[in-house]
């Protein structure tokens, strides 16, 4: 959850932000034109404002006020964005944790970017249904693969570089097929950027795979054993799934950060994802602060829908965890089975050797061979069990954690709302009014997100794939035993 508080990368990151700004403008102008929302105009900001007023329903009143106070950027941010900067303001003042939003320039830029990003989704809200329909109709064409893990460097500074290959027919990318090399911290950096931008709005940002200090150290140190290869493979698969899930999300797909991640050959080091960096410590402190906050904030859940959903998610989370535990046990036992079958195969072969009746001896050797093949089968099945089923479940469990994060955000938002209301009562300022008015929109956003259609489909597809793998295993088993049967019958 602290990920959402992750400040945009400092230092190195700054130029990136500027780049992003330009990209962002380009992005939105061009894509907007593609979607034929409105004729594009040279000034993105005002254009977007007008557009919003015509198309969207939410922040309309806010956008109208956009043109008025341009001098005070904060005010602008407040009105324009309304979904995001109120978060940032209080962050600087009232939060117990040390200031998370750092240097002012970035803050200045950030809200502007936020505003664009925030407005963009609003525009796209209308066309999002179109996009979704496209997705359902398989015209949504972007394929991402993560492959070829390579160890770069030596010793403790070594890292694994993964090749990220994108194949797409979407016009917003410059090429239709390209690949770049990324390392794990790049993925984490991408996630934190996306999270900081979208989580406030109530979007569910797919969670990134977890850091594993132990695992990586083993790889760094150069242990060439199977556990480190397994670890790398696990991570590769998890990264792939993460990217795939992220691009499935139509709004996130439009994000310039994501595009840059996929396309540009050099990515500035996301230093703040290191576990022991200053930002890392900040994150930990924030996490603790959040936990305390969670305990102290009591919210009268006026919206029954949310309450119900929250309860549902709690249950779902529990069930998934249990299921996950069972599947992990299955994986473990299957691996055991595979090992034991291999041992038995060898033993049977030895027995066949010492048997002096020739036909029986041959049959026993055949049995040994069959069992060996079956052992391989079991191993493959164990992999399938693991990669398809178990990892899927853990991804979902993390997703649920992210959803919970959204809920928590909502609670915070509610708190802000309360504060705003108090402010309203006290000061009766326009800003407060705006904040009050804009909370419902955010909830609407969250509601849209929590719509689980896609996730459900995802889950179903994976389970079906898994069942198909089981089918294949059985078919192979049948083949092997059918081959063995005549041998057994031939024992004279």
């Amino acid at each position, binding site marked *: 959850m602290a990920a959402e508080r992750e400040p945009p990368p400092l230092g190195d990151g700054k130029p990136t932000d500027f780049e992003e700004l330009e990209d962002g403008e380009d992005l939105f102008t061009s894509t907007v034109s593609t979607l034929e929302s409105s004729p594009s105009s040279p000034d993105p900001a005002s254009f977007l404002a007008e557009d919003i007023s015509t198309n969207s329903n939410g922040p309309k009143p806010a956008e109208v006020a956009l043109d008025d106070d341009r001098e005070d950027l904060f005010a602008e941010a407040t009105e324009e964005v309304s979904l995001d900067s109120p978060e940032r303001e209080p962050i600087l003042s009232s939060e117990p944790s040390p200031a998370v939003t750092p240097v002012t320039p970035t803050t200045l830029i950030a809200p502007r970017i936020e505003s664009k990003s925030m407005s963009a989704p609003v525009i796209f809200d209308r066309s999002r249904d179109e996009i979704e329909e496209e997705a359902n109709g398989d015209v949504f064409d972007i394929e991402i693969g993560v492959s070829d893990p390579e160890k770069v460097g030596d010793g403790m500074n070594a890292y694994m570089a993964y090749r990220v290959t994108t194949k797409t027919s979407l016009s917003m990318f410059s090429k239709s097929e390209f690949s770049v090399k990324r390392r794990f911290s790049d993925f984490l950096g991408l996630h934190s950027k996306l999270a900081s931008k979208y989580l406030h709005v109530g979007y569910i940002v797919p969670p990134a795979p977890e850091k594993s200090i132990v695992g990586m150290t083993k790889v760094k140190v150069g242990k060439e054993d199977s556990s480190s290869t397994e670890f790398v493979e696990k991570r590769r698969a998890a990264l792939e799934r993460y990217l795939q899930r992220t691009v499935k999300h139509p709004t996130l797909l439009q994000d310039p950060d994501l595009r840059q991640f996929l396309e540009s050959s050099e990515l500035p080091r996301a230093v703040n994802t290191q576990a022991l960096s200053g930002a890392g410590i900040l994150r930990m402190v924030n996490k603790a602060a959040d936990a305390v906050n969670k305990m102290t904030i009591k919210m009268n859940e006026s919206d029954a829908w949310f309450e119900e959903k929250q309860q*549902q998610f709690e*249950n*779902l989370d529990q*069930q*998934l965890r*249990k*299921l996950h535990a*069972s*599947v992990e*046990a*299955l994986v473990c*036992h*299957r691996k*055991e*089975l595979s090992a*034991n*079958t291999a*041992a*038995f195969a*060898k*033993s*049977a072969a*030895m*027995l066949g*050797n*010492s*048997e*002096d*009746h020739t*036909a*029986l001896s041959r*049959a*026993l050797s055949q*049995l040994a061979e069959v069992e060996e093949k079956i052992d391989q089968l079991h191993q493959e099945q164990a992999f399938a069990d693991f990669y398809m089923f178990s990892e899927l479940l853990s991804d979902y469990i993390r997703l649920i954690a992210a959803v919970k994060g959204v809920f928590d955000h909502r609670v915070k938002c509610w708190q802000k709302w309360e504060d705003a209301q108090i402010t309203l009562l006290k000061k009766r300022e326009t800003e407060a009014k705006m904040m009050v008015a804009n909370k419902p929109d955010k909830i609407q956003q969250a509601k849209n997100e929590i719509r*689980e259609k896609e996730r*459900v*489909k995802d*889950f*179903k597809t994976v*389970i*079906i794939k898994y*069942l*198909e793998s*089981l*089918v294949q295993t*059985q*078919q192979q*088993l*049948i083949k092997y*035993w*059918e081959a*063995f*049967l005549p041998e*057994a*019958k031939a*024992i*004279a």
Partner: protein
Amino acid sequence: CAGPRLGAAMMEGLDDGPDFLSEEDRGLKAINVDLQSDAALQVDISDALSERDKVKFTVHTKSSLPNFKQNEFSVVRQHEEFIWLHDSFIENEDYAGYIIPPAPPRPDFDASREKLQKLGEGEGSMTKEEFTKMKQELEAEYLAIFKKTVAMHEVFLCRVAAHPILRKDLNFHVFLEYNQDLSVRGKNKKEKLEDFFKNMVKSADGVIVSGVKDVDDFFEHERTFLLEYHNRVKDASAKSDRMTRSHKSAADDYNRIGSSLYALGTQDSTDICKFFLKVSELFDKTRKIEARVSADEDLKLSDLLKYYLRESQAAKDLLYRRSRSLVDYENANKALDKARAKNKDVLQAETSQQLCCQKFEKISESAKQELIDFKTRRVAAFRKNLVELAELELKHAKGNLQLLQNCLAVLNGDT
């Protein structure tokens, strides 16, 4: 605690008589082929009762032999009485030249009982469905172990009944007919200790005796073969056991997964939940099949290997006895030579030498036949069981496949 309760349950379940002995158990009997063909003496265990710490077998005999008072009769025997019978064979010098059918292993329900007890204790911590499911599972396991032990006792009796010489043994007839308690108590500590020492001496002796090179090629070959074979069967049997056990654990996991999916599916009635329910059903059914697979593997493969482990040990014992008598014979020869040289006690030495020679020759002759029979039996048993194993595996894999394909069709059709 679960013990007596289950005992009662067993009693109810087993009053059905021969029905509970399913084909699997007859499969175990068939490890020794050609046992059913002899109408003169047929022995089987028609019923069994499991009580707290003992099992009572009802031994049923059908015979046309004149030795018995009736043509058909039954007695109740316990495990210790089987052991007594077996030991009486071993100790009988006349049977030195035969492979004595290995004694059935002691009925061991401890592990199963423990699990049932743990389940009872943990009842509060799981849902009702889970508890019922697990209880059913454990009860099925208990029943399976029970059936196996019955089968093994039966095999022992059948082997004895099928053996041309052993079937005539008086103790055996007493065992079959005497309808009172044989008053055979289990060995007490002192006797067990004696046994232990006897075994030690025997194995030490075995080592000495095996150093004697045999003139007869047949026996020499058999000795080397049996030694190696026995060790490898031991290894294969252990590994096969482990394999079937992990197979069973994997099948059990399916059970848990099925329950979790079911719980997920009953949350509400959306599409995904119906999906879950169907998949949960699938897992339940698959699990039953997988459990059968592992049970069949256990029966056809592991039990086969275990049995031949014991039989090969018995064959080894036969060879040992023969070698022992050979050594005795040679010693007697040497003694005779010495006596002749000293011209003292020649007659005595001669008689003893004669006896040893006779003994040796008798043993050798019957041993040869026994070992040849052993091989035939072994080959036939392996053939039968391997064929059955392959057929069962095929049947289950096809069933599993069908199940999975059906489920997939339904699921795909829905989406």
